[in-house]
């Protein structure tokens, strides 16, 4: 008998008393009561609490703010689907590295890249969570992981208050990365400190009119 058949057989034996299933009481909140301004304010508050850098800006200010956040970077990786105009104000000394299908940067190259700029799919204000789902303007997972500085664009139209509101906006079978602040640990005396293996600096540009 295969392990699978045996385990399934054991489950049948264990459930010989045929426990019944019940309808799940989904009485938790699933719809927001907040205006867009309140959502922005809440998300800013949460991200600042996580020690992320946050700016709320207009769409035309993106190049200027991207450049100011990356003024110390020597190289920047960006995914193929990112609006190239967003990088247009970067100084000529900053090397731009495109990561595209068929032209992937190696892990070593990513490790030698100072920063990454991506967009994002949806953000949850209440928990301060930005979700990346690997669409072309966010790229594959490695590019937003290996460089030590992540500049992430969050269009304010993609902010929801509650996690249950974010779910229908996600394609769950795409590789998803949920980011709530820069990398951190609570492993020493259960106190949160920022900066471990993932990007140690997270700058979020929340953009109106995008």
């Amino acid at each position: 008998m295969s392990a699978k058949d045996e385990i399934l057989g054991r489950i049948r034996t264990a459930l010989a008393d045929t426990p019944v299933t019940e309808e799940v009481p989904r009485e938790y909140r699933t719809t927001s009561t907040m205006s867009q301004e309140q959502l922005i304010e809440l998300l800013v508050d949460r991200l600042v609490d996580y020690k992320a850098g946050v700016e709320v800006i207009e769409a035309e200010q993106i190049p200027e703010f991207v450049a100011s956040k990356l003024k110390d970077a020597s190289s920047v990786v960006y995914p193929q689907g990112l609006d190239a105009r967003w990088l247009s104000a970067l100084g000529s000394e900053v090397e731009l590295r495109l990561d595209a299908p068929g032209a992937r940067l190696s892990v070593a190259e990513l490790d030698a890249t100072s920063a990454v700029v991506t967009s994002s799919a949806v953000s949850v204000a209440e928990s301060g969570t930005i979700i990346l789902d690997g669409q072309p303007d966010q790229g594959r997972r490695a590019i937003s992981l290996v460089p030590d500085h992540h500049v992430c664009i969050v269009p304010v139209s993609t902010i929801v208050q509650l996690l249950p509101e974010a779910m229908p906006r996600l394609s769950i079978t795409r590789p998803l990365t949920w980011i709530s602040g820069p990398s951190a640990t609570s492993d020493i005396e259960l106190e949160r400190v920022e900066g471990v293996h993932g990007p140690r600096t997270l700058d979020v540009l929340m953009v109106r009119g995008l």
Partner: protein
Amino acid sequence: MTQVFLGMPAGGQGNLFEQEPFPKAAHRELGNTQMRKNLRHATHSIRDKRLKVVGELPDWEALRNAGSTIKNNSMATLEERLLEFEKNFTARGGVVHWARDADEANKIVTDLVRGTGATEVVKVKSMATQEIGLNEHLESEGIDAFETDLAELIVQLGQDKPSHILVPAIHKNRTEVRDIFLKEMPVVDPNLTDEPAKLAEAARAHLRKKFLAAKVAISGANFALADTGTLGVVESEGNGRMCLTLPETLITVMGIEKVLPHWEDVEVFMQLLPRSSTGERMNPYTSLWTGVTEDDGPQNVHIVLLDNGRTRALADRFGRTALNCIRCSACMNVCPVYERTGGHAYGSTYPGPIGAILSPLLTGIEVEENGSLPYASSLCGACYEACPVKINIPEILVHLRGEDVDAKREKHKLPTQMDLLMKGGSWALGKGKNIGLLEKALPLGRLAAGKDKKIKKLPGIAAGWTKSRDIPAPPNKSFRDWWSDEKESK
């Protein structure tokens, strides 16, 4: 006829056993004042944080109710859920393996690693692999396993044992961690301070090359979604993302009870888990993956579905809700017993209140080593209140105590001291007259007391009571006698 036993739930193996009876281990651990200080500090600060972030949600109880029902439903339909998960995970390019027990899981993982030609692997913190002793097994097969979670790294470098399911090095304070790093890291700044941020930085430098060069990673999973074939890992440091993203091969070992019916269920558990475990609104990183994604992440993706006693626990209709556990650790953080004895006293991979029920449920209470765990509790109920999926731990503890007594009675065939005591108790408490009669004899107890009017040692199993406390000598008159004298004199 072995045929009869096929398909019968069997007890788990591996690191699920007490190494010695809990009272003995607890007694020794209580002597470690540094550990007690560290634990008191850590558990108290996490309690306050948890209460604050839980208090923020007006629908916390609704989320708990949903979480509990989802888990119950999943367990009630476990066979269908697992088959559905297998179908969807396989359709997306993943490979599913089934393991009856720890040995079989260890062998499957070893063969998979061997197949890649790699001689080392990076690991994301995982309770399942801790439970089956995977690192030790891989080592014996010539494969080095590197733990990448900071607390696991501290434990591994210090050749120590985990004492907490979320923060395995909770028994160490920052200075002790610094000392371990200075002693065990091959390359480390000799002026390293004990500032947590500096220690985190040292861990980053220590592991960076390993991550970038790793060919194989081994992870656990916080959940599997049956209707999409998706797996999820919840973490903080980014070590999880490194392991789940950069290597060519990813092997996940997951207990069969981790499967959730619907992908929407994530919205419930990702609200319950971070707030219950680290007291955060959300953990820094969560990764979800469904089989293989072309051009993004590992291209060889495996999962080992592990029984190792879970079907044994499932067969206990009063105890099966212990399988609903999402490993948040809230129960141990609020437990007065855990706070004082620490996790090592429980022996098993799973310490604290949940461990006191889960370990004997997985192995079977009749396994002598785990007989004392259900007594490692004052039944105060703090764990039940804190549990995000409402596992009634005190009730299961009492149920298991009963099972333990039954198992021992069966073994000895003769009435034990406890049986006789209980019989006596039932006679005495059954009628007012009987207890009155017994009370008449109370003043005789004064003879057993010393000069200081304290009884220091009771005979037989009652000696357990006087081991750590004295009993004041009884008064020279029982209450009943005093009462009737009072009435007469009025």
